[in-house]
């Protein structure tokens, strides 16, 4: 049952059950492992990707729902870390173990694309990813810096 998925601007022909969660199609069929599995029930956000610009917990949606839509993963934000949000993340040395950070960055990026000047309460409301290392303090500062860099 082959179907096409557009990931980071590239069309991939995927041979999988289209009901497979988008996360596993991205990791095991498209071969991009930057998107992470952690809870499998849409709670933690480690699997966050963008589907048509919306932050989506890819462990909890079938790949079929993303057919014909634009999927963005961490690998597509910029492969060399040059996107302003990645620069901001590096500036604060934000990650610790780093496992949640792909999803965290994509959640924050969706927020910034919707609200270029997010308040702290916007961040609280929309960046609901879990980080077990507790990097939240630097994540918040990095989001504010990214907002500035993305304008400039």
């Amino acid at each position, binding site marked *: 049952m082959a179907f096409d998925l557009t990931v980071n601007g590239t*069309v991939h022909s995927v041979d999988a059950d289209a009901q497979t969660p988008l996360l596993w199609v991205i990791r095991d069929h498209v071969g991009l492992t930057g998107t992470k599995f952690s809870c499998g029930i849409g709670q933690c956000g480690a699997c966050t990707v963008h589907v048509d610009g919306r932050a989506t917990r890819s462990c909890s949606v079938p790949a079929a729902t993303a057919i014909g839509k634009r999927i963005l993963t961490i690998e597509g934000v910029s492969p060399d870390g040059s996107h302003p949000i990645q620069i901001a993340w590096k500036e604060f040395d934000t990650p610790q173990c780093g496992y949640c950070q792909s999803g965290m960055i994509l959640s924050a990026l969706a927020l910034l694309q919707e609200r270029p000047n997010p308040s702290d309460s916007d961040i609280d409301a929309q960046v609901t990813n879990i980080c077990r290392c507790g990097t939240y303090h630097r994540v918040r500062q990095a989001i504010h810096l990214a907002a500035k860099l993305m304008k400039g």
Partner: protein
Amino acid sequence: MSQRTDSSVATAQTAGLNRREFLATVAAAQGAFVLGFWVPSKAEAQTLPGAAWYEDSATREINAWIVISPDDTVTVRIAQTELGQGVWTSNAMMVCEELQCDWTKVRPQYASANRDAREMAPEWTLKVPGNGATDPKGGGEPTFANRDRTGVQGIPDSLYRRMRTNAASSVKDGRYYLQLAGAEARERLLLAAAAQWKVPVAELTARDSVIRHASSGRTTTYGQIAPLAAGTPHPHPETITIKPPDQWTLMGTEQKNLDVPLKVTGKTVYGIDVRLPGMKWAAVRSCPVYGGDVKSYDFEVIRRLPGVRSVVQFPIPDPALTRGRIFSGGVAVIADTWYQARTAVDRLPIEWKIPPEHAAFNTANMRESLLSALDRPGTVRADQGDVGAAFSRAARIVEATYSTPYLPRARMEPGNATVLVTGDRVDIWIGDQSPQETRFSAAKITGIPEQNVYLHLCHLGGGFGRNGNGPQAEQAIMIANAQRGTPIHLLWSREEDFVGTTYRAMGEARLKAALDADGWPVALEVRTAMQEGGFGPDASFNLTSRYHVPNYRYSNHTTKFHVPVGTRRGIGQAAHEFYRESFMDELAHAAGKDPYLYRRELIARTNLPYKNDMIKALDMAAEMSGWGTPLPKGTARAIALEERGAETNGMATISAMVHTVSVSPEGKVRLKRVDVAHETGFGLVNPLSVKKQIEGQIVWFYNDAMHQVNTIAEGRIVENNFNRFPISRIDEDPPEINIRFFPTGHWLIGMGHDRATSVQSAIGDAIFQITGKRYRDLPFAQHDLRWA
């Protein structure tokens, strides 16, 4: 796939290898080539500016820690595992401080656990110059017990000695020989240059990877001279000394973590990301009641599901390989993808053999059992003065009983390991906090000697205690051993991870103090109860009470439960700090005294080493927080001291924190601000990583205080995913964290696991100050915190 993206290239290339090539490549991957061949493609390796992520295998090493390529890239081999604590950077800093190389060209790499099984440590690394912990010129002795092949304490004379990453000790235990490794290499580079130029070595200087001869103006680079240095032994390595803190130039500066660029681009290779040609996935289901095993299962039900290959039953892992802990037996479904395997194992009918006495456990009867253990005599660990007599003449007696629940690590990356067993070797790809132990397990399970076990170490998506102290490696080895020739990637579901982890033991503590007429304690009796093996009795209360009391008695009381307990971040100390510091607040309130000044006075009265540092920490944190200045209604401050080690050895780690907390009339708790005064000891290696550790542990212990609990019903863990086991998000992070360091004159133990334990008692005391209600059992979110 019709088109390939960059990141799929590595996979596609390896998939093109035939079996013979694959094994040959894996064989070539032994030793230094630790990250293995499947990572990263050349393009990915360029994420860090400069040269390849891994070394050019043609380059000869200077010593077992250091390889210098012709382009001056310095590869530093790290024997600890990076799990977010910054060890890849701090350990590399210790080497490079002495090497005096260009820090921008440093690339960390995992040390080889296989080579560690084959080689002994060079003689010169075994002798620490200086005189131990109290000497700033010395290193502080690493803690090794007897030669222990399981690696529990490290192996004192194996090449990399302690490959374990635990006990907040990577910096403390690694520093002296990592500095020594850097110094030995620097001296040999200088000797090689001196020989080449035929000048006395004393006339040469080394800085930023350049060697200069001032009088002739000649220069060379480390990359140019390295081949010669690699063949130049040092005539007297035992005379090499390491730099004391006052000579550090790199250590002690804030350095961003070297692997962060990989972590913001999704390129870090964690164990879960390993892909091998011909690899199959395993999803497991082990008996949810610890100590249970498989009675029967019906493979026919799932045999025809997509991708399913086989089912492997595995026994209860040998407790000798899991440090006496009893996990469960179970089954693994092997399939082409993990999602197929997981879907199939979910549908596999399994009947369990469950020990009825284990199924009879539940939180209520376990709690009851601990409370009654408190009333039994227990093991007396300290008995100073005459506690009984002091109580008989007390002006006032205060007594409180505190409770803490079972708590897991719940690291973000679920347990996983990829294992290939062939006729005469085992290859394991894993993020592992204790590769020497895993190597030992692999040899025991397969019968293949440790010298033929190859660990390809990966970063860990959180650790917090040997990535769970759980048997993911042992399970994967057992499964792969039954499928020899096929690489098996075992991955636990989140629910399975809650079964496969070990827990911090649930605990009870009864503290009873006799106060004199002025409110000062004249006697303290502490009883703590945990299950056997619970990492509590020796955690914190022990030889002294920390705060001065002339008559002190401490006993611990154990009972037997079936839940495997292990070294969760902070071990029993975090629970003990909640008991002790909460009780200090209660005593101060009973005495009508300020909890900061009450603590201060009771530290001042002790004979503890470093008591002035403790007072300094309290003073500084209080001052930073504006202690005593008015706060709005519904907001309160609480203070606590964090100290580890001063009672028992020559090292300590000391901090004090003030937490400003609000509770809304509706009962919503907000940690608004944390003021942290932390000592530096003789020197922090990477103060940036220390700050990040403190910030992270504020979140960690906030969660312990507010939200987290694992309960037991019918012998099983009830909360087994993040819907029922809540973890705070960014909206609960304190908006203000202020961290200040102050210099002290001793070596630190470490930062990794027992900072910010004060969040627990502080929130409890703030709730008391605001609502008038004192809760003594965690987590607080389970209580009615409303007030008006």
